[in-house]
C-alpha cells in the first residue's frame, strides 16, 4: 500500500487550509456522515485548524453506534447458546447491550470468535458441522456486499449451519431524515467515500437538489477531509448545491456493479431502527425471501428480549448532530469508554469515544467551568495548554 504519507502531507494540508480560510466569509455547519471521517478529523486535530466559521458536525455513520440495542441483545442471547459459534468483527464485542457485552458472554463460556471476514465465519461453519455458526452482519453499504456474498456462497455450497444476524443500514435515508428534522443545522454533507465506491453517486443529486444542500463525496485521509471541506465551503459561499466527487480515485458514478448485483440478489430494502435515532423508513436491508433460511432471527427463536437503554444517554442527539459529545452531562463522568452508556462512547468510530480519547484536555476545563471560575473556550484552552508547549526549544530536537 502506498500514498499514506502523501495524503497526510503538512504542506499540502496548509495550502488547503489557507484556501478554506481565505474563502469562508460566513458561519457554515458541515456534517461528515461517516465515523471513519470523524475519527480522522479528531485524531489529526483537523477541526482545530479550520476557521472558527466552519463547524464540523459528526453524523450517524458509525455502524457499531447505530446498531439497535434490541439487535445487540439478540446477539448476546444467540451467542450464549451452547451449540452456537458466534462470529463478529472485533469492535462489536465491546458494545454494551442491556447489561453486558459479547466479551462478557465469551468469559461466561460462550463461543464468540473475532473474524476479519464473513467468509472466515463460513469456513468455521464448514469445519464445525455440529454447531450453528452465526455471523453478526452489521454495517453500511460497505460491509453489506461481502456479507451478501457469504450468504450467496453458503446457499450455493449447501451449508446449512450458517446464518446471518442482519442489521444493515443505508446512508441516503439517514441523510433524508436528518434534513427533514426541524432542528437540523446541517448546510452541507461530506458523504462517505467507501459507501459511494459501492453504491456510486446516483442516490445523491436528487437529495442535494431537494434540500438545496451541497454533498461532497470525501475520502478518509486528512487531505481527503480538507479537500472535501474546501469544496463544500466553496459551494456554500457561491450558493451552489451540487454533488461533487472529491474521492475520484475510488468512487465511480456508477459504483461497483458486481457488488450492487450481489446486494440486489441477497438483500431487500426494509425499514430499520437506528440506535438513538429511531426507525427510518427504507433505511436498512434484510435478507430477501429466497435467503430467509439464512436469517438468524428466523432460525433462532429469540424471545423475551427486554431492552433497557440508559436514560441519561444522549447518543441519539450526538448521532443527529444536535449535540457535541462533551455537551452531554454524562460525558467523561458516568459515561467513559470503560463504562459506556451508549455505543457512541464504546465504538472506535464513535464521536463520543473520539472526543474522550483525543480531546479530554480541552474539554475538561470547559466542563469544570460549570462549577468553578469561567474557563476559556475549547479552542482557546487547547491552544494555551499545548500548542505553545516548549518542545520546539528542545536542544536535541
Amino acid at each position: 500500500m502506498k500514498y499514506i504519507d502523501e495524503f497526510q502531507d503538512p504542506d499540502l494540508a496548509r495550502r488547503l487550509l489557507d484556501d478554506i480560510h481565505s474563502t469562508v466569509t460566513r458561519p457554515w455547519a458541515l456534517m461528515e456522515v461517516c465515523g471513519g471521517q470523524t475519527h480522522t478529523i479528531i485524531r489529526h486535530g483537523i477541526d482545530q485548524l479550520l476557521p472558527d466559521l466552519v463547524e464540523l458536525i459528526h453524523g450517524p455513520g458509525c455502524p457499531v453506534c447505530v446498531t439497535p440495542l434490541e439487535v445487540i441483545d439478540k446477539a448476546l442471547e444467540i451467542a450464549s447458546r451452547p451449540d452456537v459459534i458466534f462470529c463478529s468483527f472485533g469492535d462489536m464485542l465491546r458494545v454494551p447491550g442491556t447489561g453486558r457485552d459479547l466479551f462478557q458472554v465469551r468469559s461466561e463460556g460462550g463461543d464468540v470468535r473475532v473474524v476479519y471476514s464473513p467468509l472466515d465465519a463460513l469456513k468455521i461453519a464448514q469445519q464445525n458441522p455440529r454447531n450453528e455458526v452465526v455471523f453478526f452482519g452489521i454495517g453500511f453499504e460497505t460491509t453489506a456486499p461481502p456479507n451478501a456474498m457469504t450468504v450467496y456462497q453458503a446457499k450455493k455450497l449447501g451449508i446449512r449451519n450458517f446464518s446471518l444476524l442482519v442489521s444493515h443500514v443505508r446512508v441516503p435515508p439517514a441523510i433524508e431524515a436528518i434534513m427533514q428534522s426541524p432542528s437540523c443545522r446541517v448546510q452541507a454533507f461530506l458523504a462517505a467515500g467507501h459507501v459511494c465506491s459501492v453504491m456510486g453517486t446516483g442516490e445523491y443529486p436528487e437529495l442535494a437538489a431537494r434540500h438545496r444542500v451541497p454533498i461532497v463525496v470525501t475520502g478518509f485521509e486528512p487531505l481527503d477531509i480538507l479537500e472535501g471541506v474546501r469544496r463544500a465551503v466553496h459551494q456554500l459561499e457561491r450558493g451552489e448545491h451540487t454533488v461533487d466527487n472529491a474521492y475520484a480515485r475510488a468512487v465511480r458514478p456508477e459504483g461497483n456493479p458486481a457488488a450492487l448485483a450481489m446486494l440486489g440478489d441477497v438483500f431487500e430494502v426494509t425499514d430499520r431502527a437506528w440506535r438513538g435515532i429511531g426507525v427510518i423508513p427504507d433505511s436498512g436491508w434484510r435478507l430477501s425471501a429466497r435467503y430467509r433460511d439464512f436469517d438468524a432471527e428466523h432460525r433462532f427463536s429469540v424471545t423475551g428480549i427486554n431492552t433497557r437503554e440508559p436514560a441519561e444517554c444522549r447518543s441519539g442527539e450526538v448521532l443527529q448532530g444536535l449535540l457535541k459529545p462533551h455537551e452531554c452531562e454524562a460525558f467523561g463522568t458516568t459515561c467513559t469508554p470503560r463504562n459506556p452508556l451508549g455505543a457512541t462512547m464504546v465504538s472506535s468510530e464513535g464521536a463520543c469515544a473520539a472526543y474522550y480519547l483525543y480531546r479530554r484536555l480541552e474539554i475538561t476545563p470547559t466542563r469544570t467551568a460549570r462549577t468553578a471560575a469561567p474557563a476559556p473556550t475549547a479552542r482557546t484552552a487547547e491552544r494555551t495548554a499545548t500548542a505553545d508547549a516548549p518542545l520546539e526549544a528542545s536542544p536535541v530536537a
Partner: protein
Amino acid sequence: MPDTTLDITGWTCPAPLRDRPRVVMGHGGGGALSAELVEHLFAPAFGGPVLAQLGDSATVTLGGVRLAFSTDSYVVRPLFFPGGSIGDLAVNGTVNDLAMSGAQAAYLSCGFILEEGVELSVVARVAEALGDAARAAGVEVATGDTKVVEAGHGDGIYINTAGIGIIPQGVDLRPQRVVPGDVVIVSGEIGLHGVAIMSVREGLEFGVDIESDCAPLGDLVRAMLEVTPDLHVLRDPTRGGLAASLNEIAAASGAGVVIQEGRVPVPVPVRNACAILGLDPLYVANEGKLVAFVPREHAEAVLAAMRTHPLGRHAAVIGEAVDAHPGLVVARTGLGGTRVVDLPIGEQLPRIC
C-alpha cells in the same frame, strides 16, 4: 449520627471490578483493565511495599546489594513468528524488565506448561531458541519446572520466566524522578513485534515483509548508563505499546508528557498494516525497544550513545515532560493539531470498515 471519625487510611475499593464480573481478554492486554486488576485486586491481596512500586521489575536490597527481580509469562500464538519464537520472548521479555531498572540480568528461572499432545520436536525447538536467547543476553537459566495440562487446556506451550540482576550503584530509575523538561527518547522503530505477530495469526495473514524486534536490551541500557547514571526512568513498551508506557510514566510521575507524532519512528509496513486494520501504531506491542526520560543536559550525549549501538541506531527524541496537563500524554499531530494519547482499555480491536 454515631460519634465516630472514620479512618479511611488503607481502605481499598470494596467493588474493584464493578463492571466486569468475570475475567475478559482485556485484563491481560496491558491497558487500563490490566492495571485495574493489579492495583485493585492483586496488590491489596498480596500487600507489601515492594510490590507497591508497580515497576516492570521490583527493586529489593539483600545483604546490602540492590537487586532487580522480575517475572513474566508468555502465552503467544503462534509459537513461532517472523523474527522469533516464544522461547526468545521468554528470555528477552524478562531480561528487558530487569534492564528497565538498570540491572543486567544474571539468572533466570524457566517454567514450561506443556499441553498434552504437543510434539516434542516443537518443545525442543522452543527450548533451543530459549537457550540461544539466554546465551545472547548473557544470562544463565539456573532453575526450572515443567507441568503438563490436558489436551484442550492450553495453546501448546506456555512459559514463565523470572529473573534477577544487580543494579549498579548510583542508578535509580523510577517514574517519580521525572521532572518537567526531561527529554523523551525512544530507542527505535515501533510496532514491529505486534504487526509481525498479526501478520501470521490465523485469519489475519497479510503479506508484509516484517520481523519482530524481539531483542535483549541490557547492553543498550549499559551503553546509556555509561554516558550518565542519571537517567530518570526507562520502560520497554510491550503490551499496550508506547502509549501505555508513556501513560504509566505520566500517571506515576504526575508530569505531563508531550510527544511530536511525526518524530515517532514508525516503519512504513507497520503504518500500512495499522491503516488497514484501523489500529494506532502507538498502541502496538514491541519486544526490543525502550523509552527513556533523560535530563535535558544529558539528552544529546545519551542519544548519540544509543545511535552507535545496533539496537539504538534509529533512536529519536520524540517529546518531553511538561508542567501542563499533569498525568496526561498529549500528541501534536503532523498537521499541527493536538490529541490526548490515552491508556488503552484492553486490547486494540480492528475496526469494522
